[in-house]
């Protein structure tokens, strides 16, 4: 079994990563570091060019996270998914059956989260395994 953590290099995601690494070490689980790289705004015009740009920016951060986990003695794997942050974790959930998801609460305030949606609440709604939300 494994744990999956949503990671995009942001401050909130870093908190989640740290918690997930500690947890994976204590539980002796593999850590899946998951990052959604689909361009926002849907399919269509120059989709792949946009996704390549996103991957170029995000892949080093995700790689660094894998190294950080391995240095802490945790078996870790990076997974980039052609989906948004929620969709990426959903895809990993379906394919790899982790026993728990770990996500940051996000940096947006309440109003912004209400207007534009936030990752953590959406995941709690859609997940059938426990979700650990890290403040």
């Amino acid at each position, binding site marked *: 079994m494994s744990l999956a953590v949503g990671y*995009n*290099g*942001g401050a909130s995601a870093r908190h989640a990563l740290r918690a997930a690494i500690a947890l994976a070490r204590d539980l002796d689980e593999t850590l899946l570091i998951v990052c*959604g*790289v*689909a*361009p*926002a*705004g*849907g*399919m*269509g*015009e*120059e*989709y*792949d*060019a*946009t*996704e*390549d*740009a*996103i*991957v170029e*920016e*995000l*892949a*080093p*951060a*995700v*790689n660094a996270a*894998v*190294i950080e986990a*391995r240095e802490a003695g945790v078996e870790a794997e*990076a*997974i*980039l*998914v*052609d*989906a*948004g942050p929620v*969709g*990426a974790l*959903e*895809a990993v959930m*379906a394919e790899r059956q982790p026993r728990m998801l770990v996500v940051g609460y996000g940096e947006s305030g309440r109003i912004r989260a209400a*207007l*534009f*949606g936030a990752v953590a609440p959406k995941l709690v709604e859609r997940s059938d395994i426990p979700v650990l939300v890290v403040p």
Partner: protein
Amino acid sequence: MADQADEKPQVQPGLEANAIGFVDAVSIGLNATSPAYSLAAVLGPIVVLVGVAAPGVLLASFVPMLLIASAFYFLNRVDPDCGTTFSWVTRAMGPWFGWMGGWAIAMTGVLVVGSLADVGVRFTLLMFGQDTIASNDTVVMVLAVLLILVMTGICVIGTELSGRIQTVFNVAQVTALIIFAAVAIYKGASGQGLPGALTPSWEWLNPFASGTAALTSGLLLGVFAYWGWESAVNLNEETTDSASTPGRAAILSTLILLATYLGVGVAVLMLVGPSFLADNAGEEEMVFALIAREALGGWGWIVLLAVAMSAVASTQTTIIPASRTALSMARRQAIPGYFGRISTKYRTPAVSTWWVAGIAIVWYIVVSFISENALLDSLTALSLLIAFYYSLTGIACAVYYRRLLFKSVKAFVLIGLGPVTGAILLMWLLVLSATEMSNPENSYGGESWFGLGPPLVIGIFLFILGFIFMVSSRLVDTPFWKERPSVVEPDLVPASEGGDKR
């Protein structure tokens, strides 16, 4: 682990998106054209230009659009990049043409955003009965600039209305237009129209009914009304029955679009007649609001709401392509890499998006000050750019497929003849209207800049600006300028269209 960073990381596919049904597929087709905004922006001017031939002109403008959409369909199918005119034309005809195509797309975004915001603000104000504020240009300009900033923010944050809400919006929009057309036609037919209202005649469907003088300008605006329709035939999303749903949905959304445009065009002629529009010509897109109230009285707000919603919702279908094209150009080193920067948090091309908005705001303000018919002049210039990049795409399609064109009748007609005919029609339109606009008396407001009609000056200005930027990017020797034209891979094309795909 360190050596892994050098390889291109693998991206896994996401879960298959929920397959979209027939209604949603139809809605996507309508969404791309924003019928309510398009009608509000161009119907008044078209009627003023060509009078009773307006429905015919709207019908005729669809022909080149249909032919060019075929080019988009076939280019999109062999291009795994989900590209745009920039990618395709570069591949088919080399970097110089590709660069100009990309520039034209980015500039259409810049030109249209001001108009979208302006229409969005005015119609929202009118909807709340704030007519005095809506006709105060300074207040509208300030609000429109604020709206552009908000709309750009939304594009940068990358949030999207859910497909379901978009479908509801689109159905509401088209329903409002159809109610409006039906009531107006009923009132006109039962003699409740304004003095000057006309009895319908089949002549209205003949685009040449009022002679050719203003016809080209009318057709050009008609092309603008269908702008974006090509994405209706490019449904990439999974549909519930992928063999027949996309095709039937595209046909139905097209029929709805045509019926709405023609219906509203006929309704306006029957209810108020061309003379009313000519008398109120200075009001530009506000004319549509006047007519809506004339038709629906206290319920006129339904149409105003549809237009306001449509204008605001269109930002996604206009700003996103412009900024993504700029990003793609930057990544291929056709323009400085700075424009290719993205926001990792929101997964959007943040830098190019803000640049599009910034230039759009400056443009909107400057043009508002120097032109009396600022928005209409911008839209006409925009139509020139659209005609340019559409015809470039049509030609690129035939050029890219040239080795396969004579291998099957289907390929020859749909990939070669159709797109090229569309391209020639649009270029003919471009040249004719440019000639016409070189005489300012023929322009909408009769204004003259340097002895030319303002839209032509705007168009020439943008082309020269593009050319200067292109040459200065060329001075930096990047791999982009060494790209050589290629042809389509036969393996990507089905055998029925002359390819080798099994």
